[in-house]
Structure formats: C-alpha cells, structure tokens
C-alpha cells in the first residue's frame, strides 16, 4: 500500500520536475505555457490519486477520498481556462517567438478580418 502511494507521488514529482525544466529552457512564452501544462496535469493528478489511495488504504476514510476526487475534478475543469486566456492575451499583445512560427493561421485570419 505504502509502496503504491510512494510510486504515484514519485511519478508526479518526475513530471513536475520535467515541467519546471521545460519552463526554464523553452525559448518563448507560448512554449513555456505548453511545458507548464505538464506540471498541471500528471504532476497534480499523481499526487491526488496517491492521496486517495492513502486515505482509503490507511484510514478507510472515504469522505477524504471523495473530497480529493472533487478537488481533482474542479482543477481539471478550471485550469485550462487560464492557459487558454494567457495564450490569447499574449498573442493579442503582440508577443511573438524569436524564430517565428512554422505556420500562423491565427494571424493570417486576423489580418483578413481587418
């Protein structure tokens, strides 16, 4: 039991670490945001699932498990909205990567509208 919890938390720590390294190494705003979703998804879900397994296995406390599951669900629902609005705001503000995009359909369509 304890080993399963440790493995889950270890996995999520690994992904949080990878996300942080990506955050520091990526060259531009958009790619940094991409890398940070790594932390947000498996990085957090691993800890939450570990917590659920621990609270059921160790204390047989189902109330705590249900609360953790709800925490995960609401996190999953609300988190993407921040990523979405951050990229949109950054783009509208005129931030572009140094090497440019491979293809930029959004900008092309925005110019056509004006």
């Amino acid at each position, binding site marked *: 039991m304890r080993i399963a919890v440790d493995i889950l938390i270890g996995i999520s720590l*690994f*992904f949080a670490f*990878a*996300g942080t*390294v*990506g955050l520091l*190494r*990526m*060259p*531009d705003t*958009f*790619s940094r*945001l*991409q*890398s940070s*979703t*790594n932390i*947000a*998804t*498996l990085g957090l879900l691993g800890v939450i699932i570990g917590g659920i397994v621990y609270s059921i296995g160790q204390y047989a406390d*189902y*109330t705590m498990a*249900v*609360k953790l599951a*709800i925490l995960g669900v609401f996190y*999953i*629902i609300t*988190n*993407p*909205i921040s*990523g*979405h609005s951050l*990229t*949109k705001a950054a*783009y509208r503000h005129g931030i572009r*990567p140094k090497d440019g*995009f*491979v*293809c*930029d*359909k*959004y*900008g092309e*369509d925005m110019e056509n509208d004006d």
Partner: protein
Amino acid sequence: MKKAKFSAFLSTMIVCFIFWLLLTGQIVSIFKGEASIEVLIAGILASIIISLFSARFFIHEKAFYLFNPLKILCLLFYSIFIFGWELIKANIDMAFRALKPGKLKINPGIVKVPTKLKSEYGLSMLANSITLTPGTITMDIVDQGDETFLYIHWINVTVTDENEAGEAIKGTLEKWVRRIWK
C-alpha cells in the same frame, strides 16, 4: 441574458445537491444508514438559493440532457480511460522533449482545425481536453458561417493542412466528445 426556465433551475439544484452530498461526506453516511436529516435539509436550502442565482449562467440548452445513464457512463469512460491514456502519452512526450540535452526539438506554430461540435458544453469540453494535453493549447474558437473552427497552438507542427492537423490533434477525443454532447 435570458431568464432561466424552471427546468434549468431544477437541474442546477440537483447538481448542487449532489455536490453538497459529496463534499459534506453525507454520501458515505447514507450508505452506512446514518445520514443526518438536518444536514440534508440545509443542503436542499443552500442548493435552492444557489441555483436561483446561477441557473441562468449554468444552463442555456436542454436542461436534463445529461441526466441519462448512458451519457454519464460515456462521460466517465471518456474522462478516465480515453482521455487519461492520451494525457499520459502526451505527458511522457513533453517531459522527454523538455529534459533531452542539447538543442530543444520544438517546432511551434498555430494551426486552424475544424470541428463538428455545436453545443456550448461540447465545445468547451473539447477545448479543455486539448488544452490539458501537453503540447497543444486552444487559443480561440470562432464561428465562420456554418462551421466552427479552433485555433490551436501546437508545439510540434508536423502537418499544416486543416483536416490532417485536426486528425492528429483531436482524433479520438472528438469522437468520444460527440458521443456525449451534440
């Protein structure tokens, strides 16, 4: 803003009450047969007050659309297995992309992807699924005539054609979302 119908109010209230049961831990007590009536009554009152205010933001379409066992099963199966598997694959890919020594292998770009979904919840669920998958972020949703398009920032652009990129990004995801929402 439209005025909320009674059916919208009722279904918002039911959802609120379910969350009250889950959060206060009453759902566990009900299975053990020791639920307290006071807490349940307080929960009903609280959900009535909340849904009076929030029903008009919460539901704009058919009110009891999701109160259908098949749809809920589909939702659970999608969010645990299909989406979970996609999530793990994309996470591993992204983690190794970030941790690999040497020059970063990235190829960023914004692609435009058509979607067949129409309802608000379906679109937001697809956009959220795409954003949560590392490597892709939904930037905007636009209606152009009859069709709806998503603009997606993709960290490793392999194809720029609309339909091929759509297949690569949201292939299985959209199939399953369309089983749940219109």
